């Protein structure tokens, strides 16, 4: 078998050296009744060619985003990732390296993480960032638990503009720990009065910007109100490119910023693997979950990097850890930092500008379509479209016509009376032809 180097002779030699007659003698501790004596009901080994055929057949049954006019967002966004990113992350020394617990032979990983942490803290306008979480949603769950630790309170208030999957993660965690959650109803127009929900028992207020309906929010008054009550503001984002166009959450008074980094460096991948970005203020550093990379010197006085402040983590604190996390999203964080390095200020600002321009173009075109109305006063690259009819059916009809026109709100907020709303995202990948196809397919479907 192509992945197994030992030969029959090797195995015989090794068994002799061990003093065992057969390899099954090595499994002597497995109770006889539990030992498998028959092959399992699974196919036998296959060549590369056969595996490739089988999986390619499955892949061919899916409609790839790049093959059609594509406008889906709702927490995952399609952008052009430069060719060099994927080449670099496939280098053996990045792809097949272990966690950098032996820093002397892991400086590549560690320096890249240090650069990543700096980029994330800078982009979000915060003091310090960690080496990434699994994704934005689990990061959001961790942020709420961190706020509970910091404030010693146990009630979270979630904005009605927060991505429903993120809210569900927070609610699931809270049901397990017995913490309280106040979930505001779906806030299509960014008109909720979340400040009225903050009281002396509130540990944190969780607000997304741009919100799940695409609206832009001013977090400053919410931050002020939270702080006046001794609570923390957790600012969430799902579209990292928006940080290139909007006032960063750190400048609006956020105490913790958490979001999804997938947009930069990482493909859609049907929802994973993604990369959670997590940043906070220096004073809360020791309550921050996840891995941290820090600068130091080696025995010869040369600058180097190490994982640090590990005593917060599970392998040391065990049941008193800040979190049970063991991995970060290493390779996805690397892809993010490489893409971000290629962009720089100039590139990110330009990319964000083009994203917004394309969304504005599409919104302008939709102004002329009867039966469709763009609801947002402000937006970055995603907006909410109200349609005459059932959003999910219209999306299906558009798909049948070869256009992936967005995500129906009913898919994320089932039974909430939002069936006539569609979330429509644009990015730099959309062409004039794409937008024309969108409008044509929408009109036909209405």
């Amino acid at each position, binding site marked *: 078998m192509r992945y*197994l180097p030992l030969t029959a002779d090797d195995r015989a030699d090794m068994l002799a*050296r061990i003093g065992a007659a057969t390899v099954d003698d090595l499994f002597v501790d497995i109770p006889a009744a539990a030992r498998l004596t028959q092959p399992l009901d699974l196919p036998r080994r296959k060549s590369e060619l056969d595996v*490739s055929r089988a999986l390619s057949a499955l892949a061919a049954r899916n409609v*790839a985003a790049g093959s059609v006019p594509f406008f889906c967002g709702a927490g995952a966004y399609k952008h052009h990732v430069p060719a060099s990113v994927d080449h670099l992350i496939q280098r053996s*020394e990045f792809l097949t390296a272990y966690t950098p617990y032996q820093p002397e032979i892991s400086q590549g990983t560690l320096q890249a993480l240090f650069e990543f942490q700096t980029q994330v803290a800078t982009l979000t306008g915060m003091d310090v960032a960690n080496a990434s979480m699994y994704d934005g949603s689990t990061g959001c769950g961790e942020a709420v638990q961190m706020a509970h630790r910091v404030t010693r309170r146990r009630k979270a208030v979630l904005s009605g503009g927060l991505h429903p999957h993120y809210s569900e993660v927070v609610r699931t965690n809270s049901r397990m720990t017995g913490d309280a959650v106040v979930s505001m109803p779906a806030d299509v127009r960014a008109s909720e009065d979340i400040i009225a929900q903050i009281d002396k028992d509130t540990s944190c207020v969780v607000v997304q910007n741009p919100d799940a309906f695409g609206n832009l929010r001013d977090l400053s008054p919410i931050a002020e109100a939270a702080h006046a009550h001794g609570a923390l503001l957790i600012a969430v984002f799902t579209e990292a490119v928006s940080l290139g166009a909007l006032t*960063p959450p750190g400048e609006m008074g956020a105490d913790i910023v958490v979001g999804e980094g997938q947009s930069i460096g990482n493909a859609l991948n049907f929802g994973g693997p993604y990369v959670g970005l997590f940043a906070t203020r220096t004073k809360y550093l020791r309550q921050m979950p996840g891995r941290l990379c820090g600068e130091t010197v080696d025995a010869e006085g040369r600058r180097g990097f190490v994982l640090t402040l590990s005593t917060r983590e599970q392998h040391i604190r065990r049941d008193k850890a800040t979190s049970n996390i063991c991995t970060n999203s290493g390779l996805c964080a690397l892809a993010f930092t490489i893409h971000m390095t290629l962009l720089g200020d*100039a590139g990110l600002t330009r990319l964000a500008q083009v994203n917004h321009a394309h969304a504005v173009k599409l919104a302008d075109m939709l102004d002329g379509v009867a039966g469709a109305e763009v609801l947002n006063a402000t937006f970055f690259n995603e907006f909410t479209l109200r349609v005459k009819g059932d959003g999910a059916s219209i999306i299906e009809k558009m798909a049948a016509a070869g256009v992936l026109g967005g995500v129906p709100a009913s898919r994320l907020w089932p039974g909430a009376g939002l069936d006539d709303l569609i979330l429509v995202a644009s990015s730099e990948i959309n062409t004039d032809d794409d937008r024309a196809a969108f409008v044509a397919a929408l009109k036909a479907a209405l």
Partner: protein
Amino acid sequence: MLNNQGRPTSPGATTSADKQTFTSNRALQLEEPLIFEIGRTTTTGIDIDAPAPFASRLGQHARKTGPGLPGLSEPEAMRHYVRLSQKNYSIDAGLYPLGSCTMKHNPRLNETMARLPGFADIHPLQPQSTVQGAIALMEELGRWLMELTGCPAVALSPKAGAHGEACGMMAIKAAIAARGEAATRTIVLAPDSAHGTNPATAAAVGFTVKPVPAGPDGNVHPDAVKALLGPDVAAIMLTNPNTCGLFEAHVKEIADAVHAAGAYFYGDGANFNAIVGKARPGDLGIDAMHINLHKTFSTPHGGGGPGAGPVVLSHRLAPYAPVPFMRREGERITLVEDAAGADAFGRMSAFHGQMGMFVRALAYMLSHGQDGLKQASEDAVLSANYIRATLSDLMSAPFGDRMCMHEALFDDEWLKGSGVTTLDFAKAMIDEGYHPMTMYFPLVVHGAMLIEPTESESKASLDLFIATLRDLAMSAKRGETERFVNAPALAPRRRLDETRAARNPVLRWTPPKSVAEAAE
């Protein structure tokens, strides 16, 4: 619990005896600054044209100034990251004897398959009718996991092993709540040898952790468990094979006792590589077990992640599996995303799980087949025992001469009086071209050294590794401390000052003070 295996974390200062160069480079070992020291905010390695003038709809929310991040042109970026990569050890370059990590070969076919546009370029929320191939792949992966473990259900969404542990423990908590016992069954039993994620997860899910002792033979005994079982116990968390590399021979009796007491059995599947195709955890009585796709099923470690931790479930826990789960109706498979109407305990994360890792793992499974997977486990266990047998005359093992599973455990008894610690020994391995083995884990063994070669090593590779460890071991016993206490001497960096990093954390780059300030 005081850590009494004192290890200094501040290396003494040394100087290099190597030839000094102008650049500080050493031939192919190239020094590389931070991007903040070489990039400029005005440089970009991406070409995008400015849009035609348009009326912004950002309102008052537009950024006033750029973030302040440097950019590099493509050639500069390539050079920067290639140079960084050259400072890393990797499984492609050499053996990683890391116990409990299963550092096996990462097949490149898996990377090609994962990058097929039909898998990589699909959105999780595009209409399900347009991604039936992806959902079918998830179903197929689930089928392999259930058949290999002998369990009737599987939750695919957890994003890592520890996340899978949380999923299993949450399902247990939901099952207990459904019986009305949430207020009484609050304790989870776990051995002190357990990986830290076990107690951390149990605590995170709202349980209290109580240790269950292992016997002097390294196994957990049913009497020890029965003594702790009662109406206040929700579950036991056991790793099998355990973190000492031994199969828990009494696992079935323990599982029966746990179930009879109304509790659940959580299995930590980190060491599944030892028994794939040889035994099934479902037959041994587990109610939930996470599987590390990045260990047993070869998805690459990527310098720390991403992983994936799907959880197989027993009949008792299947109803509580989180959303999304799959439901087949004839030809069509639906991803059920809404928990309403089901007993799902909730949602672990956004979207559907680590699809990129599912493709890689399934490619691995299809490539090996049931016969190849069984062969892989046999080779893994054979290789670990080969190492154990050939080192046992020099290095002491805490549980004597018994067969191990896929990893061999040594302690530091044999180093007593040598002036060389487990840490020093490990660092000297680096100079010999090896990543150190897992050290100081499990915590219950003093100066532990846990070696897991996996099935990916040729016999020649194993023999060289063994010969090297023998040379190091004999050198240590002869008291040749110089080889060890200042190691590594040849890596891109010497030992690093972890004390300084923790006392004065510097977690991001900031611009250096001006030269004038520095001169004061």
